[in-house]
Each structure stands twice: as C-alpha cells, then as structure tokens.
C-alpha cells in the first residue's frame, strides 16, 4: 500500500501571539513542529505500512526550514519526503495550497491512500485535506477515528461525529483526514534519526510541477486576509430568575423587545 501523508510545519505554541500593528504571527522564539494532528496521520501511515508493506511519503509545502518537519517524519519511519518550496507558492490560502499539493501528488503518480491531519493547529481551517481530494477527484472521508478494515481496493473506516460515529466504506485510492482518537503516535528511533539526518529531501518548485500560475500563491488565493483583530469580550448578560413558566415568559418578552 503506497501512502502519501500531507503535513504542515506549525509554531509549537497553541497561544500564538499576533503583532497588533502588522496583524501577522509573531514567530520569533517559537519552535516549529509538525502539526500535532499530522502526527496521527504519520502514525497511521506507518501502521498500515507495517501491516501491508509498500511505501510512505510525506509532502509539505513551506519555506526551506520546513525540511526539518520532513526529517522528523523520516525519523519516525517515513520512507521519503518531498518539500514544495518556491517563492511563487508564498501567500497560498487553502485553495492554492491544496491545488499545489495535488499537483505534487499527480507528479508522484500511483498511490493508494492520502492521509492528512484533521486540521492544522495554526490556521484551524480543516480545508486542505478535502481540497486535495477535490482537486484529484478522489473520494474522501474526514475525521476518521479508526480504520476498521483495509483491503486492496476498499477501506472501511469509522468517522467521528458529535454523537457517535459513522461507518463508511470507500474505494481506494482515497483521502482520509484523521482525528487524535485514531492512534498514539510513536517516538522516533535512533536508527530513524540517523537516517533522517542524511536523507535526501526532494525539493520541487513551480517549474517541476508545471501548475497554472493563476491558481498558486497569493494571486491564486481567493481568500484575502483583510484584517486580523481580537473581538471585544462580551460583557454583561442577564440571569432570569423565578418559576420556570415565569422565566419562559420573561425570555419571550426579552427576545421580542431586545433581539433584532
């Protein structure tokens, strides 16, 4: 089973501070790590490989230092890493990112499964995984908490819902995004770390992928960040007291008079 895992390098802290003047993330002094949700995708890929054999590949799009994320994935046991790095990719939103990643996956060619974390801990959009499957026109299941059964051409998975879960069968190749309930990620091994240190990281840019320049980077991104701000804290509120029927009446009156 050949598996591709899409990962993202993110700042370690969950409390990223924002420069109030430029409205950009303050990255100085913050360690870069693999997006925690992607660690579960990597782990699941390694487990599937241990069971079925095949090859595991990670892809990430990012600046040159994102290579560290690929090396970390290799230290965990991933076979190969590809870095998509080009000035032309800078400023990509989820559309442009998923388009670019899907372009790289097309270049890789044959695969059985694509795994992504459910979302990145910095942007929290959960759109890139589904975006890739749409660009590649393959089926997808999001929020997978368990792979119940995997066969050559079909997979049965459990999809986490707010209450309970769905059981879904999908034909392969397909894309899954995974939640943290799916497994417990392993630590690296010493051999893995040694291999990661000397591993050749493949780097592809725009001319390797031959993408539509109108769909990549900032100009290929329909999302424009106009302003980032901290919404004012809600204040006040009102607590209604009395018998339940009285409260209901008061509430109805308030909704009629106060709500717009």
């Amino acid at each position, binding site marked *: 089973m050949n598996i591709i895992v899409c990962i993202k390098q993110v700042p370690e802290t969950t409390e990223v501070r924002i420069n109030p003047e430029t409205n950009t993330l303050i990255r100085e002094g913050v360690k870069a790590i693999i997006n925690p949700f992607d660690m579960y995708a990597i782990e699941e890929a390694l487990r599937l490989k241990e069971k079925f054999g095949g090859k595991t590949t990670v892809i990430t799009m990012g600046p040159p230092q994102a290579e560290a994320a690929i090396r970390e994935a290799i230290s965990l046991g991933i076979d190969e890493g590809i870095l998509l790095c080009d000035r032309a990719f800078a400023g990509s939103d989820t559309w442009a990112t998923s388009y670019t990643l899907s372009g790289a996956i097309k270049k890789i060619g044959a695969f059985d499964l694509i795994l992504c974390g459910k979302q990145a801990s910095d942007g929290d959009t959960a759109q890139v995984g589904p975006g890739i499957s749409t660009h590649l026109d393959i089926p997808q299941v999001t929020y997978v908490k368990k792979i119940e059964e995997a066969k050559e051409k079909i997979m049965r998975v459990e999809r986490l819902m707010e209450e309970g879960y769905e059981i879904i069968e999908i034909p392969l190749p397909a894309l899954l995004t995974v939640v943290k309930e799916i497994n417990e990620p392993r*630590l*690296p091994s010493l051999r893995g770390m040694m291999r990661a240190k000397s591993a050749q990281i493949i780097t592809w840019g725009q001319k390797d992928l031959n993408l539509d320049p109108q769909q990549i980077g900032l100009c290929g991104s329909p999302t424009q960040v106009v302003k980032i701000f901290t919404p004012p804290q809600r204040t006040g509120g009102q607590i209604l007291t009395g018998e339940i029927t009285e409260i209901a009446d008061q509430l109805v009156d308030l909704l009629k008079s106060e709500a717009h």
Partner: protein
Amino acid sequence: MDYLFNDEQKMVKELAHKIAEEKIRPVAAIYDQTQDYPWEIIKVIADAGLFGLFIPEDYGGMSVGVLNLCIATEEMSRACGGIAVCYAASALGTFPIVLFGNEEQKKKYLPDLASGKKVAAFAVTEPEAGSDASAIKTTAKKEGEHYVLNGLKHFITNGGDAETYVVIAMTDKNKGARGASAFIVEKGMPGFTFGKKEDKFGIRASSTSELIFTDCKVPKENLLSREGMGFIVTMKTFDMSRPGVAAQAVGIAQGALELAVKYAKERHQFGKAISSFQGIQWMIADMATEVEASRALVYAAARMVDAGIKDVGKESAMAKMYASDTAMKVTVDALQIFGGYGYMKDYPIEKYVRDAKITQIYEGTNQIQRNIIALEIIKELAK
C-alpha cells in the same frame, strides 16, 4: 558545560530526553508505588533502539559505545532512577556476553538483547557474598553435556523479569577466586526458579529478586570464556558498567536539582521567592557544580572505555563513587529546599533521595570503590 558531543551522542540525548519527559516522568510515581516492572516503558526504549547502543552492529546493535549508554541512562534517570536502572541492569547483564562470549553465544543472545525484545541480568551477589565476592557458594558441576548449578543468588536487578542471565558459580571450590566461572542461563531452564522479590526503599520500579538453582542443567556451550574465568568476567564487566551506574547517579542528581530550582522560584516566603535568598542560592551553586564535576568524570571514564583503554578500573571506580556520593548529597539538599513539602509523598523530591541511596551501594559499595582506587594508585606509584 559543553561536552562536544558528536551527532550520534546529541541524538541519543535528545531521544532519551524525549522518552524521559513524555513517557517516564508521567508514570514514575505510579511505578514507585506499585513496584510493577515497567514493561510499557521498556518497550518504548526498545522501539527507540536504545538497548543496543554498546552492542556491536554485527549482532544487531549500534556500536556507538558506553558513553552513549551513559547519556541515555543519565537522561532517563532524571525522570526516574528506578525505570532507568531496569535499562542499565540489562546492559550489565549483556556486557559479559559482549566481552567474553564466543561467536555462537553472541549470535544466539545479543540480537534479542540489542533489540530490547529480551532484557538481561547479571547475578553475582549471594546472601553471604556481597562485597566479598570470593565467598560465593553457588556451585556448577560438570556432568556430561551440562553443568549442574546449585545455590542461591539474591538482590538480582531485573531478576524474574529478565530472560537472559549471566550467573557466576564455583566450578572448583578449592581454587578460591580462580575457581569461579560464568554461565549464560535462560529463564525457563529446568531447575531455575525465582524466590523472594524484594520490597525496596528506592528504585522501586525495578525488580530485585532471588534466583534459585536446584540441579539446574545448563548446556556446557553456555560457559562464558573458560572455567575459572568467573572473577575476571565479573571485574571486567563492572569496569564497563560502572560508568553507567555513575551516569544513573548523575541523572538522579540533575533531576533533583532541576526540581529544587523550579520549586525555589515558585515558593514565596517573607514576600519573595526563596530563590532570591543567598542561603538557597549558595546551595544551588554547590549542587550544580558538584553535579557538573560528576558528569565530567563519568563522561571521561566512559570515553576511556570507548577508546579501548585496557585498565579503566580506577577511573570507572572514581566516577561511580564520586557521582553516587554527589547524588546522595544533592538529593538531600534538594529535599531541604522543598522544606516540609519535600518530606511529603505528594511532591516528587523524596523519591530522588530514596533512588539516590542505592547508587552508593550497588555494583560495589563506595567503600569497595575506594579500595580499588587506592590500590591502583599505590600500585602506580610503586612502578
């Protein structure tokens, strides 16, 4: 202090640190209480590939030496001296096979020990033979294709949980020390059973048990080296392993120091953090300096071992003695910084005092270490 580690050593440190913080620290207090053998952590260490550091690559190891073993042991001991000693004691049981095993023995036993699939133990101590190892009573009598072992070993770290044991027994009682021999004994061999599991003061995550040999038949191929080499095997093994025990002591001391400094910054009395008081600051300065001095001595001894220098008995005894005496002193001072809270089991520091104590006792008491050091120096100066 920068010890100028190479890339491998940096990786071992990083990896062992990760294991210590993410896997060991959260469960250290639980194992201390239950005294269960920490198999889940052993598996993590095994998967990380740390069991085979000093084992030659031809037998599934990494061939990266004793300094790396020390680095790994130290890092893990920062979080729990008990769990770390399960790891270090397996190395102790493996060294005799690395040093004295023949090709068949190495091929048969080392790969599983390198992968951590099995753990090892080294069995010298008996109720009547502690520091005086020449008083060993366990016998091994050759009968045809086997040696038949009879006797009792006690205080054996990893006893009962290890699969592979190196056992010292007398093949010729009349020859005294020269009548001892070393055997590889597997768990499950007929006549080999386990007795009392000790209830210990510290390092409670590790198992310490009696080994009972009742007409235990060990194939003659399992004799290490030759008959009569038992004491040489023991001494050479300890020369190799003592830097590891010393590293355990450094790790326990370092862990206690870190906790004490963190606490001193958080604890407020007389309106300020107690870390702002000179009395505490001087304690911290002394503790940190002594830990660093121990570490430097341990790494230097380990580097001598790795460089293949033949006689490292004195240096490895110095490292073990100094680091363990320091660990005892530093952990007691760390508890003092915690004050009354430190005496309570709700805080992690009292465990460090209990874990530190054994490092002054096992693998040769510190009095025996002083004998080794003094005799060696007197011998050197007589030349």
